[in-house]
């Protein structure tokens, strides 16, 4: 049933992209395997969000090829429904008058199709997604009255409502307290064990490292990716891209070495 080529759910080859004359991505080669839980790391402004947007077809690279499910991102058609995306929170208007369940139901809109109304099955999918992330009791709460962590779960539920095979999360735990962050990652871990492919963007290595089973480090170009012990072993490497932790990958259990040099930012 699953084609051999789909062992790599995402393939990027030699991708370059610039905003005007500001180079943001520089000859990036990048693959993600089906079922992988990948942390995409890198300092602020290193191009993580742009890389994700290339994969999602929101920006088109100047050079190179991007494939997701073996197709070009702007040519996905119905395969779009297999993608779940939780964008960076800063891009969302928090005064928008919307109840949690309405925001979650939006995850189904594209699947429902133009000129059609949501059906009972769509509301049911939204309800199940909310239950899955533990916000069923907040269904009628407006976005403006949710905490940062609750809101992040709403957006995760919105992505899940579409029953995706791959999840992209862009800095999902910025401005969320450590306890909430921890339970959010446990939630992602559970999804991963059920077979979800997850790409988690963060500039916070220390927190991500204990949950993912692979990392890629970005600083315009891809500085390292793959079996972490091969890529991240050297200290220069870590210093080069500003990551202050190194993840080792032994079987199912990731081991972490965190270099503490307390920048003060969490």
């Amino acid at each position: 049933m699953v084609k051999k080529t789909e062992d790599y759910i995402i393939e990027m080859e030699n991708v370059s992209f610039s905003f005007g004359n500001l180079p943001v991505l520089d000859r990036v080669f990048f693959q993600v395997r089906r079922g992988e839980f990948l942390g995409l790391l890198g300092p602020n402004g290193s191009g993580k969000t742009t890389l994700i947007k290339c994969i999602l077809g929101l920006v088109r690279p100047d050079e190179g090829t991007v494939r997701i499910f073996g197709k070009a991102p702007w040519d996905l058609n119905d395969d779009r429904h297999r993608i779940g995306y939780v964008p960076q929170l800063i891009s969302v208007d928090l005064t928008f008058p919307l109840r949690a369940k309405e925001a979650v139901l939006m995850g189904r809109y594209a699947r429902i199709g133009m000129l059609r109304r949501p059906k009972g099955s769509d509301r049911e999918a939204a309800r199940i997604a909310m239950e899955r992330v533990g916000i069923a009791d907040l269904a009628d709460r407006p976005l403006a009255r949710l905490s940062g962590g609750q809101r992040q779960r709403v957006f995760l539920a919105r992505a899940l409502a579409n029953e995706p095979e791959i999840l992209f999360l862009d800095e999902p735990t910025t401005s969320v307290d450590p306890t909430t962050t921890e339970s959010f990652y446990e939630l992602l871990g559970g999804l991963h064990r059920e077979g979800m492919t997850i790409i988690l963007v963060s500039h916070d290595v220390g927190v991500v490292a204990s949950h993912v089973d692979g990392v890629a480090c970005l600083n315009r170009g891809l500085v390292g990716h793959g079996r972490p012990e091969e890529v991240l072993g050297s200290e220069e490497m870590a210093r080069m891209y500003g990551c202050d932790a190194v993840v080792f990958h032994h079987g199912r259990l990731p081991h972490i070495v965190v270099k503490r040099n307390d920048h003060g930012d969490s």
Partner: protein
Amino acid sequence: MEILNYTFMQRALVAGTLIGVLCAVMGVYVVLRGLSFIGAGIAHASFGGVAIGFATGVNPVWTAVIFCLGVGWSIGLLSRKGRVKEDTAVGIFFASTMALGILLIGLMKGYNQDLFGYLFGSILAVTRQDLWIILAVGLGILAVVVLFFKELLFVTFDPEMAQVGGLPAEKLYFLLLSLVALTVVISIKVVGIVLVSALLITPAAAAHQWSESFRSMMALGIFFALVSTVGGLFLSYWLDTASGATIVLLSTLIFFASAVFSPRRRRRKVSVASS
């Protein structure tokens, strides 16, 4: 209420009601998507369109429709392609289309009383034909909003996510701009080019203060707009004031009352106090 026996007042009330509903509905998208300045820009651009109508002898509504759609799309295209920022694009069209209108009028012989009506609105001079145009175009706009309700909601809230899901976000954005342009054009005869953007923005902004869901914001926006247009008409009749200005000031009053008394405002105070 013998004033209701006057044909002009009946027409004014029907026109005011229709335009109130339309401006409130489109205003919700304008306010939430941050299109207020574009709305004002398109409104001022209609002056150029109306002047072309006067210069060519065509009904100014139609020349203004074409002109405003063109301006709306141009602003959208210029800012989408990243050539200039959106507010810069608006600023350029805002002034240049007014300039075009002034130039054309200067070339025409004599002073045109009707044109003054378009600038500041003359709800009491709404003709039967105007009413039919408002009704036909207005129902068309509302039909499109109903048909694309969930799509317009999605691109207004989160255009990027909508695009990832596979909705034609760009096209829907231009659809939204077109609907705003049409709403502006059929409203200018009633509230005036200078004032129409206020009716587009203010009732929706007032409703925003109270609302916790999209539908309630729309319903309340319509209610506020109707109070403003219908109430403003009667007030202007009794006080013998300009109808467009009375309508706009009444809606502004509602906005300030909402900003001061709405629970959103009170909640913000409470949360500041407790943190």
